[in-house]
């Protein structure tokens, strides 16, 4: 029955010269993401070859580096050259820095930082500078409309952390170029983090985790959860948010209110979904990346939120900006000032736009206010009522701030906030659920996932580990079909790819 209806040319076409050539070429129209089925298919073949060389550490590392470079080429094409140039130069910079002392060492560090940052500044911020010069100084410079190399914000930060750690003598520079190349290029974290620290990752190169049945199950579950988060929840919610932001004046206050929550969940599931896939893929190869999210929307205050949201970036900003600025060593006022500066930089890192600066500033001010509050008012963290109120307050504050993150202009952001605060009518809730049943259900599912205690989640995960390994193939098939069933058109790029 099946044979008679299947086009047998399919197999031949799948491995045709044209398809193989396309598989090895960069396509601007179809860059590789983890959510591309073509990537997952190739990754399957990659693993088969990997199984034969996994015991030969040297060959295995070379194999992963080559595949990582190929992955970056499929994602960013010609920018691979720039990436390689940066890896080579930073490797030598680190070695020179380690061999110097005093002023010369410091100068070398500054030189290397300026060099590393110059690429990021040029590609990400030059148009922003031109645009503002044209607007405020009346100049008429043409915009470059530069394409931002994918992952540049992430790998630049990784490279900076490596150079600074070597400078601080917290880390010895790698002796072998291949080790540094492995650390920088490792494809699971390459394009959108987590921002991996050399001191955490380099030791794993020599002694990765043992790949066994348990690790396989953990990895596959992570990848499937990531795919579901991204393709099933985030993308679907994203459609609604996009429609609203395209024509904000056509929607009621209640719609803006729901869109605010929809985007809060969208960005969380989009980025944490990506991180889950990245962590799962790395784990399948035997390398454990640190978690990037730890239930951030369960945070009972903004300080805790920043310990749980995009953890690798928060830690990076703390270690390489906040503490070098002075941290809390120079009195209360300067502590607050450094906090604000750090969050402003963090905001600007997300995008070359005043909106991101504003977003960073809002979070910075909230952190300062919380510090002041907690200096004078002591609350028992075990008090359930205060914890609950704290979670509600923090989640809503973060959600309002996300509006500036999502809107294409301040005008739309303020229009949306204005609608929420002045035009909202909660009686519309019923008509909303009737008119948008899918969005309502997805928001409810999101809430259940986000606000379910860890104990329950871990219990379910532990239960899944008891399934036999081969049943995971069925699980993957069902998940992929479910994604196909609900996704609309093609996959949307990850939100954090633009940063």
């Amino acid at each position, binding site marked *: 029955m099946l044979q008679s209806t299947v086009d047998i040319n399919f197999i031949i076409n799948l491995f045709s010269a044209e398809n193989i050539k396309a598989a090895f070429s960069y396509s601007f129209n179809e860059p590789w993401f983890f959510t591309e089925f073509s990537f997952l298919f190739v990754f399957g073949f990659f693993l088969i070859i990997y199984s034969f060389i996994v015991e030969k550490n040297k060959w295995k590392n070379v194999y992963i580096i080559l595949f990582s470079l190929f992955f970056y080429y499929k994602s960013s094409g010609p920018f691979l050259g720039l990436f390689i140039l940066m890896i080579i130069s930073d490797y030598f910079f680190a070695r020179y820095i380690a061999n110097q002392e005093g002023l010369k060492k410091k100068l070398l560090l500054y030189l290397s930082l300026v060099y590393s940052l110059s690429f990021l500044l040029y590609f990400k911020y030059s148009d922003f500078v031109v645009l503002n010069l044209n607007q405020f100084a009346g100049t008429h410079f043409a915009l470059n409309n530069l394409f931002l190399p994918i992952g540049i914000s992430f790998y630049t930060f990784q490279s900076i952390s490596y150079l600074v750690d070597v400078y601080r003598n917290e880390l010895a520079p790698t002796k072998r170029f291949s080790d540094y190349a492995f650390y920088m290029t490792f494809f699971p974290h390459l394009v959108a983090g987590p921002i991996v620290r050399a001191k955490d990752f380099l030791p794993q190169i*020599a002694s990765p985790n043992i790949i066994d049945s348990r690790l396989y199950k953990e990895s596959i579950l992570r990848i499937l959860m990531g795919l579901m988060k991204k393709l099933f929840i985030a993308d679907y919610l994203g459609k609604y948010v996009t429609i609203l932001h395209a024509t904000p004046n056509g929607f009621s206050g209640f719609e803006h209110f729901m869109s605010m929550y929809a985007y809060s969940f969208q960005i969380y599931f989009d980025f944490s979904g990506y991180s889950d896939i990245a962590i799962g893929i790395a784990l399948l190869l035997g390398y454990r990346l640190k978690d990037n999210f730890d239930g951030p929307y369960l945070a009972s205050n903004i300080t805790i939120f920043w310990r749980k949201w995009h953890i690798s970036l928060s830690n990076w900003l703390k270690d390489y900006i906040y503490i070098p600025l002075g941290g809390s060593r120079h009195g209360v006022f300067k502590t607050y000032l450094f906090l604000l500066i750090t969050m402003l930089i963090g905001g600007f890192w997300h995008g070359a736009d005043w909106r991101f600066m504003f977003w960073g500033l809002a979070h910075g001010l909230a952190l300062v206010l919380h510090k002041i509050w907690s200096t004078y008012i002591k609350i028992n963290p075990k008090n359930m009522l205060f914890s609950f109120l704290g979670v509600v307050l923090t989640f809503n504050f973060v959600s309002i701030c996300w509006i500036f993150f999502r809107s294409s202009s301040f005008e739309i952001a303020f229009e949306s906030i204005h609608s929420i605060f002045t035009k909202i009518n909660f009686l519309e809730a019923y008509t909303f659920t009737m008119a948008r049943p899918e969005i309502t259900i997805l928001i409810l599912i999101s809430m259940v996932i986000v606000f379910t205690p860890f104990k329950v989640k871990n219990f379910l995960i532990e239960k899944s580990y008891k399934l036999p390994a081969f049943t995971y193939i069925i699980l993957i098939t069902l998940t992929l079909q479910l994604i196909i069933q609900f996704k609309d058109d093609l996959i949307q790029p990850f939100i954090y790819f633009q940063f």
Partner: protein
Amino acid sequence: MENKDSSALKKKNSKSIILLAGFSFIIPLLLLNIYDSSSLQLSISDIKLKKMTVDSIDPGLNINTAVKIKPNLLKNNNVKVESKKKSHNNHKLEAKKKDLYLAINLDSLVYTKRADSSGHRIMIMGDSECGGLFSVLNDYCYQNGHELVASLVWNSATILNFAYSDTVIKTINKYEPTFIFIVVGLNEIYASDLKKRKSAAEILANKIKGLPYAWIGPANYAEDNGINAAFASAAEPGSFFLSKDLNLPKGEDGRHPNSLGYQIWMAAIANWLETEAKYHLEMKHPAIRGQKIRAKIINLNAAKYRGY
């Protein structure tokens, strides 16, 4: 050291598990591909199992707008009534001022010529300014018996993207519009390579030759280097609308009109289409705004998808 590690791994790493992991991705994807290429149509109860191949034109941020959008309360014929009501806060006052301003602007536009009364399948494409215009155009379509079938919003795009990609042709073939709006140029008002831009504009004009269209120049707030002239010369005589001299309220970013600006802009375009444009189009001002959008919105970003 390395040999020692390798030998340790040799004992514990499970080759069969890694092989299983590889096949865990290959087998499901092969199965889904086979199902995709077959003529089988599986279903569970009444739900058909979809296939992998998606009917889409481009990678990017595609969204389906077949959802209900609550009609906006902003109705021109309600402005006078609303303005009589007492307002208790500044925001409401501001909103009413805007509505009145819009009403005055709309009233000042006089129709002098009857237009083509047939209902059109309308497609609008362009850069970010198109993203602001399409919802307003949607209201005009409702009012005048047209159907907005597709909106191709290509953020940060220039004429080069529209000319050298096959996106325009694919979109036209897919949605079969009978009238096209082109809104492009904001991202190249300071362009100095006008020769190149003009030839790209000619390529785009050739692509849509045979279809009636309205080529809308960018609503730029600064003098351009000649991009409007380049586009005007490429478009068919009488089909280019010069927007740069319109006095449109600016948005926060200083580059785009605000929502009121887009409504005034569309009103001016509508007037032109009814009176002077080569391809006339029935474009009475809408009585109701914020109509449900049924068009397919294709949202692309030139920073991620150049198209050629």
